[in-house]
């Protein structure tokens, strides 16, 4: 009968619901508008749900975090390379003309400044992983580069000397090189002031070059990268496997 009832809707009822839902829609819009008015466009009201940043890598394979490639088959790693290239585009010097050179090793506090400046991140710091010398980011040589980055969180000021360290469970299969050296993340890139205030902000990157032992090819190598050296950046959360750490697998064939 419920459906019958729907068929029997008279014009008056239609009008009633038009007005009723119109009113509700207006009310919804109005309350949402009021709510949005209370928000700042610069920083979110609360940041307690992301007190500590997660780690992420680039390139990020489509399937879970597993890299499979053949170092002699360019097609097999073409996607990784193009992803990296695309990712590094914004770090190109031409795009960083407005960015300033900041004092390394110090938190770059700009609270009092209306226009927040972004610190320059020189691609050269990524050394062999900058894509400048080796256009294949080492994939063709069996020394694939993976960029590790820390999630942006507004106002986050890391303490100590944060650095990325990657380890493999299987010892001796892989040798890890870091760019910048020791995987250091410079404090001058913090804090982040948000998309609208800090438009040109570039998050610091750490390139991890995996020199895979020649007799370890065809084997799946599990690698875990963690952020270390900073007491306020968590890396051992039970439930969140990406909080201050990331695990991925690499399998290279020849």
């Amino acid at each position, binding site marked *: 009968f419920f459906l019958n009832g729907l068929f029997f809707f008279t014009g008056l009822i239609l009008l009633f619901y038009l007005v009723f839902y119109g009113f509700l829609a207006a009310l919804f819009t109005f309350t949402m508008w009021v709510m949005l008015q209370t928000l700042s466009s610069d920083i*979110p009201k*609360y940041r307690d*749900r*992301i007190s500590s*940043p*997660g780690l992420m890598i680039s390139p990020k394979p489509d399937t879970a975090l597993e890299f499979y490639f053949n170092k002699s088959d360019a097609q097999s790693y073409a996607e990784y390379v193009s992803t990296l290239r695309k990712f590094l585009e914004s770090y190109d010097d031409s795009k960083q003309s407005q960015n300033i050179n900041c004092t390394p090793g110090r938190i770059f506090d700009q609270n009092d400044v209306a226009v927040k400046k972004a610190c320059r991140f020189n691609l050269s710091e990524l050394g062999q992983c900058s894509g400048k010398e080796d256009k294949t980011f080492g994939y063709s040589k069996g020394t694939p580069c993976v960029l590790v980055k820390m999630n942006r969180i507004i106002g986050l000021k890391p303490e100590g000397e944060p650095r990325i360290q990657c380890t493999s469970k299987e010892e001796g299969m892989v040798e890890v090189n870091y760019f910048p050296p020791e995987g250091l993340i410079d404090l001058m890139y913090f804090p982040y002031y948000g998309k609208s205030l800090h438009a040109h902000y570039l998050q610091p990157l750490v390139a991890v070059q995996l020199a895979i032992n020649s007799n370890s090819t065809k084997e799946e190598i599990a690698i875990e990268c963690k952020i270390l050296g900073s007491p306020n950046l968590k890396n051992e959360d039970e*439930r969140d496997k990406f909080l201050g750490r*990331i695990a991925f697998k690499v399998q290279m064939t020849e």
Partner: protein
Amino acid sequence: LLQKKSNVYSVEIYGTKDLEKTETGDEEEKYKDLKGNNKKKKAEDLKKELDLEDHKLSTSELEEKYGTSTNKGLSSARAAEILARDGPNSLTPPKATPEIIKFLKQMVGGFSILLWIGAVFSWISFGIQLAQGSESPFDNLYLGVVLALVVILTGIFAYYQEAKSTNIMASFSKMIPQQALVIRDAEKKELSADQLVVGDIVEIKGGDRIPADIRLIFAQGCKVDNSSLTGESEPQSRSCDFTHENPLETRNIAFYSTTCVEGTATGIVINTGDRTVIGRIASLASGVGNEKTPIAIEIEHFVYLVAGVAISIGVLFFIISVSMQNKILDSIIFLIGIIVANVPEGLLATVTVSLSLTAKRMAKKNCLVKNLEAVETLGSTSIICSDKTGTLTQNRMTVAHLWFDNQIYSADTSEDQTTQPFDQSSPSWTALSKIVTLCNRAEFSPGQENLPIMKRVVVGDASETALLKFAEVILGDVMNIRARNKKVAEIPFNSTNKFQLSIHETDDPKDKRFLLVMKGAPERILERCSTIMINGKEEPLDSEKAEAFQTAYMELGGMGERVLGFCHLYLPENEFPDTYPFDTDSMNFPTSNLCFVGLLSMIDPPRSTVPDAVSKCRSAGIKVIMVTGDHPITAKAIAKSVGIISATSETVEDIAKRLNIPVEQVNRREATAAVVNGMELKDMSLQQLDEILCNHSEIVFARTSPQQKLIIVEGCQRQGAVVAVTGDGVNDSPALKKADIGIAMGIAGSDAAKNAADMVLLDDNFASIVTGVEEGRLIFDNLKKTIAYTLTKNIAELCPFLIYIIASIPMPIGTITILFIDLGTDIIPSVALAYEKAESDIMNRRPRNKRKDRLVNQQLAVYSYLQIGIMQSVGAFVTYFTVYAEQGFLPSTLLGVRVDWENNAINDFEDSYGQQWTKYQRMYLQWTGYTAFFVSITIQQVADLIIRKTRRNSIFQQGLFRNKVIWVGIFSQIGIALILTYGLGHVTALNFTPLRFQYWFVAVPFAILIWVYDEVRKLFIRRYPGSWWDKNMYY
């Protein structure tokens, strides 16, 4: 007349020979109706088997037939053999549904099927995910387990509730083991009655219940009360003589379950257990189909409705989801969510609790409900067929009127009388009271001095008891008065004399005369009088005074009262000195030329609460039909005095009398009332009966047998009425079963009647039925409120799924969270609505039309789903968006993010401010969203609960604080929400997180809006009754 009447009874019960010729077709049809075609054969058998020959046989023939001896009885060994062959002498109780079937019914009934489907889908998707090696397949396993648990637990709960109410009845059906005095092995033995076998010789005495069908071989002054069999309330005498062809009419057979009122008798058991006459009738009753109760039909209708909505929305969105290129697996999970959101899991349990609360309340008011659903049936009752004796009346003779000094006085007939208000100053009254006191053999049983007079137990017949109590009330200690007026001679009442006489010394020491007092049938008493006492003086009884007597006698008789005449004579001292030897055999004293003193009339008066109850029924649109075995005049008088026939209405006969025309010429439609005699009823066709039921609003069926009740009930049901029937005898059980609600008498009722009934009236009082009706109507209204309350939030639970699929936002509410609302926060409030008081007019409206007035009607569904439900959804979504926005995800960012949002590999999901979130951080935020959504629904459900208190009146008319349980509900609701949010906020499996305090208040304006809107709705409904608004908005 008696003979004829008895024929009627036998016809009705057994369909015996004389009927077969004339009304076979009709009778068969009735049975068909009763039992279906396959049972017809059984009915035929019943008739055949009743050709009992035992009453025609001589004692020796009987001894031979049953292999017994009247002196020695059976041998124990033989008896054991027969017992093994025939089974115990007890009625087989009606077949109960096996417990396991009852339990399984609960497991698959109602919404359970839907939830099972949800559980199975969950497990299927768990299996698929497991096979695919997905990361968190166990969520679906758990969900399936939770759904299954919900079904099982609610099933167990409903089963337990049902069993609990059945258990109340079980205590009732337990019979006290009855003993019988049997001669076996030439010895008298006391045996449990169920050990009796055919051929046993049993002895019975006054007060015993007849333990089996027995053929009497010896009887002395034996009388039996066959009322449970024939409805005839006068005790019938029993002897060893074969007096009638029909086994039911002959005096030498006594029937199982009837009682021996007085005398002693010995007989041979000729039938035991189910083969007894009563046993066969009882088995007839079990053949009458049990129809679905109105509330069961309503709930079924409601379940179909909700299930229909759930399935159609589910399938619709499943298709939408699939066509939006979602994975089939995901779509199945959406489908489960939609089903869970749509099904009010806790509602059926709530309904059961509400019904059992009402059942408890009714039990306090002396209505014991056997079947929970019957609670509401009483509320939708439109016709009550009530017994007279004991139900409408007090079931005891009471002096109602007196006539002396040429004047009629009325006496108080109420239950708790302590004085009598009529003028007692006349010396005639003094004389009359003396006769009443002395010419009476009834006595109070000893040891009752502290009881009110009306409650004391008396040894004696009904009339004498009435007179004794009447005298005791007015004069005080009757026994003392009798002791002071020593009885010297007495002739007890007998049917040839039709008078009772006794001779006493007087208590005046100076007066040495003897006082002769006499009472009896008024015309017989008057015959013996030559004078009449007027104002204490004896005056000659001339024709004028005889005329006055006649008028008074007619008037009292016309009121359906039993009239007794009283006269006395002071015996002259010189003729009857102290030592005079009175001899009652030779009657050596005058028994004529006495002095007539007065008349007393007695009636079984209506219970004092009944007239009020009847008028309540009338204003509640319930037709009260009296069905009695009593005489039409008495029946009509009682009907008039309780208002079943109102003061102004007339029967066809009344009109004929008033207009002085023959009955046939009266326009039958002019008569609102009708008194139908059982004999007329017997000759009526179904159409004629329907006509009577249709055309007359006030009907009394007199001289009916309990069996005719069944015909009357069926007639009423043909009119589309919901019929309540009261009954006490075994023979009432078919009618009790057939009725929509059978009401058995708790005090006078037989076990068979209680078994067949849906309800037991503990105090046998008609007025209790009316309170039951009130409770039944109230619970119907309150269930409406409960359902409306429960359905509303289903929309607020459903919308998230729909928006989630369509707008691809992060999931606003989880399936588990929904279960916590349905089975957690909402349960106590929805039960609390069962405690809501009526909205003023409950007994002033007509009974609901079971075809039109549905429990869940279109208005209720539409108002709950499309109006309040949508408002709640809006309020909850505002909270949801607020939580996300304040954490960094503005509404614009949320649209269309679902796939990425739920991607486990994406751990740098960017929010509106450029921050990046890991999957777990997003999930945690999503759970916060669940919690916020949950809290908003809870807060708005508080408003929903308050508005559901009334459907028409303003909350302020109803009183916000009158129903305290509502507040218990509100506090429990908020309390449970607080515990879930802050107490269990860290148990990840439950998907609750601690919530910022301010989010509790985001939905408050919407809650207030709901309240205000509903007040406006009710205001318009009250202001503009019958308007478009009223029609569409009143549920």
